[in-house]
């Protein structure tokens, strides 16, 4: 129920891309077997909503949005009474991009985990803050800023949280050497 509603709402963010196929991906194991046979370079994933197999991936909906669409997507989930689970980043150094991943879950038994992800260039990693929608995003965003150097535009207090206050490094960047 909630799953269908959320899927439609998130798809509404991509009006032009109705031709984007929204299909359940085959399980990851098969993916791997295929990619072994044909080691081709993967195409970058287009923005859009993808269903995932909960049994394999642990979440139901996976939406990749542009940073400009982020606030709208998060507001949709807020209105549907999702709670924020975590925010984190991934450094895709080969593609010269940073990815920010937002996890949302529900308190009721209408199980639907949603992952929102957005990608920004590595040279200028800026995404809008969602602290105005979810106050609990505050620490998660500060932590992501600590670890990756991703700036959250409009964040009220973007100072180091877990790292020392004078830290000028971002340890989870792939070019940071221990």
């Amino acid at each position: 129920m909630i799953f269908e509603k959320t899927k439609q709402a998130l798809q509404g963010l991509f009006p032009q891309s109705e031709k984007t196929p929204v299909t359940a991906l085959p399980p990851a194991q098969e993916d791997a077997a295929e990619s072994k046979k044909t080691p081709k370079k993967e195409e970058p994933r287009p923005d859009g909503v993808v269903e995932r197999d909960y049994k394999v991936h642990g979440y139901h909906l996976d939406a990749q949005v542009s940073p400009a669409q982020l606030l709208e997507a998060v507001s949709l989930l807020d209105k549907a009474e999702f709670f924020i689970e975590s925010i984190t980043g991934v450094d895709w150094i080969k593609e010269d991009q940073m990815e920010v991943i937002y996890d949302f879950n529900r308190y009721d038994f209408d199980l639907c985990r949603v992952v929102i992800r957005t990608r920004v260039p590595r040279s200028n990693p800026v995404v809008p803050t969602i602290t105005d929608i979810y106050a609990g995003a505050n620490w998660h965003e500060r932590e992501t800023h600590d670890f990756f150097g991703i700036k959250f535009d409009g964040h009220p207090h973007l100072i180091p949280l877990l790292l020392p206050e004078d830290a000028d490094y971002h340890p989870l960047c792939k070019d940071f050497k221990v």
Partner: protein
Amino acid sequence: MSAPIKLRPDETFILNVGPQHPATHGVLRVKMEMDGEYIVNAETVIGYIHRMHEKMGELKTYSQFLMNLSRMDYLGALGYSHGHVLLIEKAAGIEVPERAEYIRAITVELNRIASHLFWFGAFVMDLGGFSPLMYALQDREYILDMLEAITGSRLTYSYYRFGGLYNDVDDDFIAAARRFIPRMRTSMKKYHKLVTGNIIFRKRLEGIAPLTPEICRKYGASSAVARGSGINFDVRKNEPYSVYPEFDFDVPVFHECDSLARYNVRMAEIEQSLRIIEQGLDKLPGGPIMPEKKLKAIKVPPGDYYQAVETARGSFGVRLVSDGGKTPYRLKLRSPTYSNMHLFDESCRGMLIMDALAFMGSLDLVIPEIDR
């Protein structure tokens, strides 16, 4: 309890609670702006024992990282290892023998009781009652002895392996666990008589620090913090994993939203954990504890995986981004206390400082778990 009639912003002073303060149970610092005894503003400062487990996760192989998980939360280590092994098993497609899953559930629940007992003792001690801690530690000791016999350690257990367990349980463990259940039930009666009904205790908690379900949702609170606010959320029930669907147990939910409700939830949870252990011991199947085919170095197909489990402190999540290599490309540890603690700043405004410390105790904080 109620906000002072008029806060005087021109006459406030700053009070540093921590980082070395007994009431914070670890190196946590709260910078409080005070108007007399009332809190005008609070800012929690964390990170004093940040160890960057997530970077270690990227540098070590999957098996090498196993022991890090038990260093996150020193009171409920097994729950965290459980989440990690479940995720890797799910992502790499490793089958786990049924006996191993049952033993995992039994030991996780034992660990949960041990954690709740320690919290109970420390929480009551925060409020000025010293002796309950001694009783609670004695009961906890039985659990530590049991777990030490099978896991080899008393606190930072690294007992689970991908695909099963490091060591099988013996008859002594099962007998000790069976003896423990009625003993713990008797103790619970004692605790309720000694503490729960105590008028001083109740007056310190009733109606203090109300957390609305809306605040819980905005901050992503879980465990007793959410369940004390009328939210029926327990990962064991909402997203059943391992063998938990096989067990008949309830999720205690209290609707008063105050510190006492959070206390009541944890106390009621001990009984539910006992029920799970009881059923687990009855149903415990025979058979191997590790897959028959010996596992080589673990490799996970490329992709993005997530697994949540209910630990003693709430919904713990592990996210794995794999590129197919020997080490994870990215390993994110979502700590439940991190979210539970975060709502403290907003909720303690206008509160008396002694109420705020009782509130902090009711959140069940373990600082290494926040800092990771």
